[in-house]
C-alpha cells in the first residue's frame, strides 16, 4: 500500500502541470527562501537557476546552487525501514499504529509525543498540530524552532502583541541610514541577504555589527563591537543609557505609543557606559558612537539573530533591544524598526500554525477558550477534547522514556541528535523510547535510531507554502513526483489518522465521536488553514495560493481575499489591547555557566556558509566543503603549542569534542567557536548546556564553559 491514495478533496486549481519540466520555486534551506527555477534536463538531472525574486534579487549561495543534488542522491531513502530493515508501507504503518495504541493504553495519551520542524511547510506544520491534538490527543507536541526563534518570538509578542520576524519588507534594510545587527552573521548564514547590507553601506549608511567573532559580516561593517559572549543584554542597556543621557529619546513617541517607559528608564540608569564596558569589553567610545548613530539617523533598523537570542536570557536580551528601538521611536516609523532574522526555511510559518506546545493555528494561544472554540469548530471536534499546553522542546526531549514522560515519539523535519543541546543526553533519551518514528528522506542521525523510518518527499517534489523572514507567504512548487516507494508527510498523517480510527469524513465516527478530516492534498490543507487562522494574530484568511502566485507572495496578516496583505506593521498602532507597545524593564544577568579555573574558555556555536543546520542534507552534497573544526585565537594556540589543523579536544561538563584546530585572529582569545552541523566526535552540541530561558525555554546554545587541549597521537 502506498500513502498516495487519492486525496479526500478533489485537487482544484493546482498550477502544477503533470508534464512540467521547469518550475519556479524557492530554495529548500534558510528563511530567506531565495527564488529559484528548477529545470529537469533530458537526462533527468535537475538544474538550478537563480530567480530575480524581491528577496534574493537573482542571488543564490552555494547551498542553493547545489540543492538539487540531493534529489537523486544514492543515500535517498525509498523504502520504509522497520528496526533498520526494509519493509512495506503496510508493515510500517501496522508497527506504528500498534506501538501508539500500546503506549497510549499503558501510559495515557500524553505518552505519545510529536516533534516537528521549522523547515516544514505551513500545510505540514498545521496538519501536524491538528494530528497531535485531534488524533493522538496529546499535549506533547513541540518543534525544533524552539531552539531557533522562540526568544525573539516571546519578546516580540510581549512588546508588540505580535511576532513577525521582520515587520517590514527586506528592502527597507538597504535604505536604513543606520543598521545595528546583533549576533547575526548573514554573510555566511544567508549570503544573498548581504546584498542589502552592501547596498546599505554603499549609500553611506552606518552598519554596526555586534558579535564575539569578527565574522565576515562583522568585518564588512563600518563598526564592529566584539563583546564577551553572553553580555548582549548589558550592551543593550548601556546603549539605552547613553540614549537617555544624551537626550536622544523620542519623548513624544514614548508618551503616545508606549507603556512602561519610566521603569525601563530607571533600570537603564544603572548601566552607565563604564560599567557596561567592564561587563562587555566594548569600549565606551564605541558604545557612544553606536548610540549616536542610531539616534541621529532618519531611518534606523535594529536586527537580532541567534547570537543574541540563543541564551538563557534571550527573551530579556531581545526585550532590551526592543526597548532601545522604542526609546528611539523606531517601530512603525517608515524605514525604521526592530526585527529578528528568522533562521529556518519556514521558521516564521512554522511557529504560527500549531506545532508549538502552547499554540493553535493563527498564533492562537491554546489556553484561550475563544481560540480553542474557533479552531475546534474548524476541525469539527469538541473544544474540550483539545489538550492543553505540553512540554517545550528541550524539556520534551529530556523527558523521553523517563517516568511520566513520553514513551513514543513521531518526528518530522528535525534531527535533534545533532541539533539539540546537551546532545549526548538527548541521544540516550531518544534511545530509551518504546517507539520512535522518523519521517525523512535520508537516514539522519536521529532516523538511524528510529524503530520506523518513513521515506518522504523532498522540497522539489511537493507543493505547499512557506512564510519567509519578512512574513511573506511563498509558494513551494513541485517539479516532479516523489520517487517510487516514497510518501509525503501529509499523506503519512492522513493515513495514520485513518488507521488510528478517524473516519476522515468530518462526521461521526465510532461511538458517535466526531472526527476531523485529514487529507494528503496540500491545497485543501491550506484552504482549511485559512479558516483556522481567520481572526487570529497570524491571519491567513485572505491568502490563497492563487494570490501568492499572482502577487509575488502575500504578507500576513491578510484577513480577507479582497484585502491587501500587510508588508509593514505598526504604522497605525500595535496589536495590544491599548494599541501601545509594552516596554518591560529587564536587568542583565550572567551566563548560566561562566568560565572558571577548570573550564577557562567560552565556547560559542554557530553555522558556516556551506552547511545548513544539522547537516543531514548539506553534508551529503559532495560539492559543499565541510567538516568539523574548532576556531581559536593565535595567542591561545601558541600557549597550547597548537598549529593549524592539529587535533584538539574540547571538554565541557557534559562531554567532549575532537576536531582540527583552525587558528584565526578573528576570535577573542578567551573564546572558542565550533560549528554545530556535525555528528559523532565533532558534534558541538555534545558540549552545550541545557540552561533554558525562563520564558521562551530557549537553551543556552551560544555560550558554555570549556577547556581545550591538544590530542596527543
Amino acid at each position, binding site marked *: 500500500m502506498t500513502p498516495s491514495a487519492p486525496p479526500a478533496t478533489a485537487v482544484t486549481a493546482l498550477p502544477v502541470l503533470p508534464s512540467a519540466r521547469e518550475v519556479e520555486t524557492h530554495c529548500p534551506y534558510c528563511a530567506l527562501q531565495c527564488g529559484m527555477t528548477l529545470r529537469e534536463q533530458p537526462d533527468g538531472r535537475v538544474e538550478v537557476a537563480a530567480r530575480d525574486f524581491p528577496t534574493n534579487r537573482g542571488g*543564490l549561495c552555494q547551498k542553493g546552487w547545489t540543492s538539487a543534488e540531493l534529489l537523486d542522491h544514492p543515500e535517498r531513502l525509498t523504502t520504509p525501514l522497520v528496526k533498520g530493515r526494509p519493509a512495506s508501507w503496510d508493515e510500517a504503518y501496522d508497527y506504528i499504529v500498534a506501538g501508539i495504541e500500546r503506549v497510549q493504553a499503558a501510559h495515557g495519551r500524553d505518552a505519545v509525543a510529536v516533534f516537528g520542524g521549522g523547515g516544514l511547510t505551513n500545510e505540514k506544520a498545521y496538519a501536524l498540530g491538528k494530528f497531535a491534538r485531534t488524533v493522538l490527543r496529546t499535549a506533547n507536541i513541540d518543534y525544533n524552532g524552539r531552539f531557533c526563534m522562540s526568544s525573539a518570538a516571546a519578546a516580540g509578542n510581549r512588546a508588540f502583541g505580535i511576532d513577525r520576524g521582520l515587520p517590514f519588507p527586506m528592502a527597507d534594510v538597504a535604505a536604513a541610514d543606520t543598521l545595528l545587527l546583533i549576533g547575526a552573521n548573514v*554573510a555566511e548564514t544567508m549570503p544573498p541577504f548581504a546584498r542589502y547590507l552592501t547596498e546599505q553601506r554603499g549609500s553611506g549608511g552606518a552598519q554596526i555589527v555586534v558579535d564575539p567573532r569578527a565574522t565576515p559580516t562583522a568585518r564588512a561593517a563600518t563598526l*564592529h563591537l566584539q563583546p564577551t559572549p553572553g553580555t548582549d543584554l548589558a550592551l543593550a542597556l548601556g546603549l539605552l543609557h547613553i540614549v*537617555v543621557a544624551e*537626550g536622544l529619546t523620542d519623548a513624544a513617541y514614548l508618551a503616545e505609543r508606549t507603556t512602561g517607559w519610566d*521603569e525601563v528608564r530607571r533600570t537603564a540608569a544603572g548601566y552607565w557606559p563604564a560599567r557596561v564596558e567592564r561587563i562587555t569589553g566594548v569600549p565606551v567610545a564605541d558604545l557612544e558612537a553606536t548610540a549616536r548613530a542610531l539616534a541621529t539617523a532618519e531611518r534606523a533598523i535594529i536586527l537580532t539573530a541567534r547570537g543574541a537570542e540563543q541564551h538563557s536570557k534571550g527573551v530579556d536580551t531581545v526585550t532590551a533591544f526592543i526597548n532601545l528601538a522604542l526609546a528611539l521611536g523606531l517601530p512603525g516609523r517608515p524605514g525604521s524598526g526592530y526585527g529578528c532574522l528568522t533562521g529556518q526555511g519556514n521558521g516564521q510559518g512554522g511557529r504560527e500554525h500549531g506545532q508549538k506546545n502552547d499554540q493553535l493555528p493563527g498564533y492562537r494561544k491554546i489556553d484561550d477558550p475563544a481560540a480553542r472554540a474557533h479552531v475546534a469548530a474548524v476541525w469539527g471536534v469538541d473544544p474540550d477534547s483539545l489538550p492543553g499546553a505540553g512540554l517545550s522542546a528541550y524539556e520534551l526531549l529530556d523527558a523521553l522514556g523517563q517516568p511520566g514522560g513520553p514513551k513514543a515519539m513521531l518526528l518530522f523535519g528535525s534531527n535533534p541528535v545533532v541539533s539539540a543541546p546537551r546532545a549526548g543526553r538527548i541521544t540516550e533519551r531518544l534511545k530509551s523510547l518504546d517507539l520512535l518514528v522518523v519521517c525523512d528522506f535520508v537516514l539522519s542521525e536521529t532516523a538511524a535510531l528510529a524503530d520506523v523510518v518513513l521515506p518522504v518527499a523532498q522540497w522539489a517534489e511537493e507543493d505547499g507554502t512557506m512564510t519567509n523572514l519578512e512574513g511573506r507567504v511563498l509558494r513551494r512548487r513541485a517539479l516532479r513526483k516523489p520517487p517510487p516507494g516514497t510518501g509525503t508527510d501529509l499523506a503519512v498523517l492522513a493515513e495514520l489518522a485513518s488507521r488510528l480510527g478517524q473516519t476522515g469524513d468530518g462526521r461521526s465516527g465510532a461511538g458517535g465521536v466526531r472526527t476531523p478530516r485529514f487529507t494528503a492534498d496540500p491545497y485543501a490543507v491550506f484552504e482549511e488553514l485559512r479558516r483556522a487562522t481567520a481572526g487570529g494574530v497570524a491571519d491567513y484568511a485572505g491568502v490563497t495560493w492563487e494570490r501568492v502566485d499572482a502577487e509575488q507572495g502575500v504578507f500576513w496578516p491578510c484577513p480577507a481575499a479582497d484585502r491587501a496583505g500587510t508588508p509593514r506593521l505598526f504604522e497605525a498602532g500595535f496589536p495590544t489591547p491599548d494599541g501601545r507597545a509594552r516596554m518591560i524593564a529587564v536587568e542583565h544577568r550572567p551566563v548560566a555557566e561562566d568560565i572558571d579555573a577548570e573550564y577557562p574558555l567560552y565556547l560559542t556555536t554557530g553555522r558556516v556558509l556551506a552547511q545548513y543546520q544539522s547537516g543531514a542534507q548539506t553534508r551529503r552534497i559532495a560539492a559543499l566543503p565541510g567538516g568539523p573544526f574548532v576556531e581559536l585565537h593565535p*595567542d591561545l594556540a601558541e600557549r597550547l603549542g597548537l598549529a593549524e589543523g592539529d587535533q584538539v579536544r574540547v571538554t565541557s561538563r557534559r562531554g567532549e569534542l575532537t576536531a582540527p584546530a583552525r587558528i584565526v585572529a578573528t576570535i577573542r582569545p578567551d573564546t572558542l567557536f565550533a560549528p554545530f552541523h556535525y555528528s559523532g566526535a565533532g558534534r558541538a552540541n555534545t558540549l552545550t548546556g541545557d540552561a533554558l530561558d525562563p520564558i521562551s525555554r530557549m537553551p543556552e546554545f551560544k555560550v558554555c564553559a570549556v577547556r581545550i587541549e591538544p590530542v596527543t597521537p
Partner: protein
Amino acid sequence: MNPGNTTRHGTAVPRADRPRTSPDHVVIIGYGMAGARLATELSAAPDVEVTVLGAEPHRAYNRILLSSVLAGKHAEGDITLTEAAGHGVKTRTGVTVTAIDRAARTVTLDGGEQLGYDHLVLATGSQAIVPPIPGLESPHPRVAAFRTLEDCRRILEAADGARTALVLGGGLLGLEAARGLAGRGLAVEVVHGVGHLMERQLDPGASAVLVRTLAEHGVAVHLASAAIGVSADADGVTLRLDGRNLRADLLVLSCGVRADTALARAAGLRVERGIVIDETLRTSDPRISAIGDCAQFGEVVGGLVAPAWEQAKVLAARLTGAEPAAVYEPSAPVTRLKASGIDLAAMGTLQADPSCEDVSFADPARGTYARLLIRGDRLAGAVMLGDNPNVGQVIQLFDRKGVVPRDRRALLLGRALGGAEAPVATTSPALMPDQATVCQCNTVTKGALVRCWRAGARTVDEVVARTRATTGCGSCKDAVDGIVGWLSSSDSVGVS
C-alpha cells in the same frame, strides 16, 4: 512566619532543628546606591521584610551620573534608580536615624519613633570633606561641595549666569565637575595641591597629557598649588594660593570624602576610618552589617559603586539564605573618567619594579597616552587616555586576570582583534595567490576563475555563469571584474 526557611542554610541539619538565624525584618539605614541596591536584591526573597530609611527627601539616584547632570547631559529625573518597593520592601525617605539601641535591637528616628530590627544594615555613605582652609568655615552660595544631588543643584544655581568657575581638587570627581561646567560654557580653573592630577590613579606622563586635553576643553589646571584661603562675597570668590590669587564666579570643592560613621561610633561599633567589616560584611555586632562608602574592609574604605554593589549582592545572598556561605572578595577597582572629549581608564598599580614589563605609547599631540605594567603575562596596572580602541579589552584582562597577548602592541595600537585580513578586492589580481578565495559564498578561488577563463569564458557574465562567483552576497563583484579585466589584458594567461 518563615515557611521558606528550607534553603537558608545548606547544611545537613534537619529542617525543623535548624536555628532560625535568617532575619525576618531587615532595616537598612541609607538609601543611596548601596542601600537601594541591597533593597532590590532582598526584594527577590519572599519572606524577608525590608525597611529602607533614607535621609534625603527623594528616591535613590545614581550618584555616578551626578557629573552628567552637572554637564547638562542627564536631567535629574533620568538618574533615579529602580524602586524595590512593592516586593516586601518599605521605603521611607526624609527620615533621619538618631540612635541605635543594640541591646533592644531598635533604631530611633528623628521624630522619636522606634523601629525594631532582626538585622540592621548601615549604608550611611560618606560626606564631602571641606578642607580646613580659612574662609570655608561657614557656607556661602558661591561655594559648594560636589557630592550629592543637593550639591549638584546648588552648583547649577551658582553657575547660572556665571562665566568662570574654580574647582579645588584635581581628583576624578573634581575633573568631571570641571569638564561639566566647561561644557556649560564657563571658563574653569582646577587647583590641585599635588604635582600631577589624580595622583592615586595616574603617573606624571598621563597627567601631562590629561592637562593638555583638559586645556583643549576649556579647563586650565594649576598643579602643586596649595590653597591657603577663600573669601566669597556677593560678586565672586577669591581663592588664595601661595603667592597669587584666583578669582571666579563660583568655587566647587572636590577634596575627597569621609565615611559617615557617626551612628556607628555612637552605638559603640568598631570604627577606624570607616565602619570595620569582615568578609561576611558584619560589623563588630553580628546583628549589624555595613556596606558601601561607610564601610572599611581591610585597609580600604569604600568610595566606588562597583564594590558597594558587590557587597550588597553578597549580603543579600547571606541574609536571604540563597548562599549562606557567600563572602565578599574585593576586586581591584578600575577608574573611568567620563566626560565629553576625555576618555580615561586607570587600574591597578603604575609603580614599576624590575619584575615588570613596562610598555607604553604616547602621542600627546592627539591626546593619547597608554601604559601597561605586565607581571607574569598578567596586567598589574594600566592607564589609557585618549583614543584607545582596545580599552575594553584591557579592562577585561585586568578584571579577569587574563593572559595578555603575546604581541603587547595588540593592546596599545589599533583594533587588535580581527579586521586583520585585507579584503580581497583591494589586492591586485596579479599578486593574489591562486588558492585565494574570491567569492566566499560559492567558494570560488582566483585559480578557478583563471581556469574558467582558460576554458573559454571571456566575459564577466560567462565567468559568473560557469563559476557562480558573485551570485551570493555580491560583495566580490569588483574583485571578479578586476580579475577578468586583468586576464583580458594579460597575454601570459590569455591562451585559448
